[in-house]
C-alpha cells in the first residue's frame, strides 16, 4: 500500500528524534528504546511548546467569554478542530472533542441509548435501537470497542454479535457476511488491530453494512497515527482516535461523525456550553459539535493535538506509513525466526503497521518484558486490552513491540536480539 513512497532515511529519523526530549533518556543504564508507541506515543517540542505557549499567553475559557484572551483562545480552539478535521478528511463541524477514543465510542453508544429511551424527538429515529436489533463487532477488538456495545445491548435489549477470527487471528469475513443482516443497526470494528498490527479490509465490511443500512463505526486509534486516513474515502459513519497515540497529550481524543448523524443524535454529556435555552424543567441543545461538548473543554490539549497533527503532516503520513511498514515486516520476520517464538497473526495475508505481538513458549510475557526493560527496551506486556483475541489464540498474554516515526533500525534489532536473549536467560539451568 505504500509501495512507491520512500521510507524515512536514517538521517531524517535522527533529526526527528532530536525533537523528542524523552528519547534522550537512559533507562537502567541503557539508552531508552521506546517500542511502546502503540500504547502511548511521545511528544515533540512542537507539541510541548504549543501547549505551554497557550497556557502562558492566552489561557482562558472558550465559547463563554468576550474578553480579548477568551476570544483568542476560542479562535485557536476552533482552528485546532479544523486542523484535526482536515487531517482525517472531515468537515470542521463533524469533529467532536472527547477525552480519548474510549469516551468517543461511549458517546456514540450512550447517545444511541438515550435516543432508544425516547430522547431527541423524531430526528433521533435514525439512531434508535429496539429489542431484536443487532450490533456487530469483532473478536479482534480492543475492550474499548467491545464493552460499550455489550452495555448498550444490555440497556436497550439489542443483541450483540461478534465476528470470529480464524486460527491465524484474521477476521472471518465469510461469517461477517452471515452475521450482518437486515437486523444489524451498527457495525463497529477496528481499522488496525492493536495486537496483530494488521490493517483490516475496511471496504469489505463497509459494503456488508451499507447493504443492510447499518451504521459503521471505525476504531481508528491505531491507524490515524500511522497511516494517511480519509474517513470520507473509507465511507464510515463514525471514527474515533486518541491524541496521546499520535504525538499529542493525554486527555484528548476525537469523534468523527457524519454531519447528518450527529445532527440526529441526542446529547450524551449535558451541562454548560452545549445549550441554547435552559429552564428549570428543560433544556434546548446547540447543533453539533457543541451539542456533544459539555462543560469546559480540553482547550490546551486540543491546541497541542493540532500541533501534533501539523508535525505529522509536515513529515508526511505516507512516508511515516512506509517507514513503519518496513519495521512491521522486519519484526514479524526477525521474531518468527527465533525458536520458540510465535508472532501473533504472522500468517495473516494483510498489510501491517509497525507493530508485532509475540508469545514465547514457556516464558510469560511479564518476564520477557522485564528482561527487555533491563536493557532499556520498553515494550508492552499483558493482554493489551484484548482478552477475547488472546483467548482465541490460546494464550492469555503476549509481548508487543510497536514503532513510530522516531523508531530506528537499531531499536528493531535490539528488540529481536532481546527476545532471543530472554529465552536464554529464562531457560538457563532448565
Amino acid at each position, binding site marked *: 500500500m505504500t509501495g512507491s513512497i520512500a521510507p524515512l532515511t536514517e538521517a531524517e529519523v535522527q533529526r526527528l528524534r532530536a525533537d523528542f526530549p524523552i528519547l534522550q533518556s537512559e533507562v537502567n543504564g541503557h539508552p531508552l528504546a521506546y517500542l511502546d508507541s502503540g500504547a502511548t506515543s511521545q511528544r515533540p517540542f512542537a507539541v510541548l511548546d504549543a501547549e505551554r505557549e497557550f497556557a502562558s499567553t492566552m489561557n482562558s475559557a472558550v465559547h*463563554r467569554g*468576550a*474578553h480579548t484572551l*477568551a476570544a483568542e483562545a*476560542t*479562535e485557536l480552539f476552533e482552528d485546532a478542530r479544523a486542523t484535526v478535521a482536515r487531517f482525517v478528511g472531515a468537515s470542521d463541524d463533524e469533529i467532536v472533542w472527547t477525552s480519548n477514543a474510549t469516551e468517543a465510542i461511549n458517546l456514540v453508544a450512550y447517545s444511541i441509548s438515550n435516543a432508544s429511551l425516547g430522547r431527541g424527538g423524531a430526528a433521533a429515529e435514525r439512531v434508535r435501537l429496539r429489542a431484536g436489533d443487532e450490533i456487530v463487532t469483532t473478536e479482534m477488538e480492543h475492550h474499548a470497542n467491545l464493552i460499550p456495545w455489550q452495555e448498550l445491548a444490555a440497556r436497550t435489549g439489542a443483541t450483540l454479535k461478534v465476528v470470529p477470527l480464524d486460527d491465524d487471528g484474521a477476521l472471518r469475513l465469510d461469517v461477517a457476511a452471515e452475521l450482518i443482516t437486515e437486523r444489524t443497526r451498527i457495525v463497529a470494528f477496528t481499522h488496525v488491530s492493536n495486537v496483530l498490527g494488521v490493517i483490516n479490509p475496511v471496504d469489505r465490511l463497509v459494503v456488508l453494512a451499507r447493504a443492510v443500512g447499518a451504521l459503521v463505526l471505525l476504531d481508528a486509534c491505531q491507524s490515524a497515527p500511522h497511516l494517511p486516513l480519509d474517513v470520507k474515502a473509507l465511507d464510515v459513519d463514525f471514527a474515533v482516535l486518541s491524541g496521546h497515540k499520535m504525538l499529542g497529550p493525554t486527555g484528548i481524543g476525537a469523534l468523527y461523525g457524519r454531519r447528518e448523524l450527529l445532527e440526529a443524535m441526542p446529547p450524551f454529556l449535558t451541562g454548560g456550553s452545549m445549550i*441554547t435555552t435552559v429552564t428549570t424543567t428543560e433544556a434546548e441543545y*446547540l447543533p453539533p459539535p457543541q451539542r456533544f461538548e459539555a462543560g469546559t473543554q480540553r482547550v490546551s490539549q486540543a491546541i497541542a493535538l493540532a500541533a501534533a497533527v501539523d508535525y505529522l503532516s509536515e513529515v508526511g503520513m505516507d512516508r511515516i506509513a512506509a517507514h513503519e511498514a518496513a519495521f512491521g515486516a522486519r519484526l514479524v520476520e526477525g521474531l518468527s525466526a527465533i525458536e520458540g517464538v510465535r508472532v501473533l497473526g504472522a500468517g495473516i495475508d494483510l498489510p501491517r503497521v509497525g507493530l508485532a505481538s509475540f508469545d514465547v513458549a514457556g516464558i510469560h510475557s511479564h518476564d520477557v518484558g522485564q528482561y527487555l526493560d533491563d536493557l532499556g527496551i520498553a515494550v508492552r506486556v499483558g493482554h493489551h486490552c484484548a482478552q477475547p483475541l488472546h483467548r482465541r489464540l490460546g494464550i492469555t498474554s503476549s509481548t508487543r513491540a510497536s514503532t513510530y516515526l522516531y523508531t530506528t533500525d537499531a531499536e528493531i534489532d535490539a528488540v529481536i536480539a532481546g527476545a532471543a536473549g530472554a529465552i536464554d536467560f529464562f531457560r538457563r539451568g532448565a
Partner: protein
Amino acid sequence: MSDLQNLYQELILDHSRTPHGFGLRGEIAAQSHQLNPTCGDEITLQVHRAADGSVEAIAWEGHGCAISQASASLLSELAEGLTVDDLETRIASFREAMRSRGKILPDEELLGDAAALGGVSKYVARVKCAMLAWVAAEDALAKS
C-alpha cells in the same frame, strides 16, 4: 478615534437607544427567531413584503447588546423598499465584512449607515451580535 469609540460610534448608540423597526406586527409575514447562546440574547424578526414582492419593512423585537440592537435597527432601515435579491446581496456583503477580522471595510454604497458597524469585525466574539438580525432576515427570506 480609539477602536472602542469606533466600535461604539454615536450613530450606533443612537440606533440602539431608539431602534428603527422595533415592534412585531400582527400581519402574517415570514418570521425567524434567532438566539445567541453565550449571552441568551434573542431576536424575532419579520420580513413584510409589498404587493410587488419587494421588502416593505422589517419588523423585529428582541433584547441584546448595543451592537445587536443597533444592527437590527440599521438593517431594518436599509431593507425598506429593496427587492429580495438586493437584500440578499447586502446581507452577503455585510457578512463578508463582518467575518473579515477587520480586513474588509463594509461597502457604504451597498450598506449605507450600516457600514458604521465595520468596527465590529475586529472583535471576533462580537460578530455574532452584529450578525444576529441579518441571519434572522436571511432565514425569514429562505422560509418565504
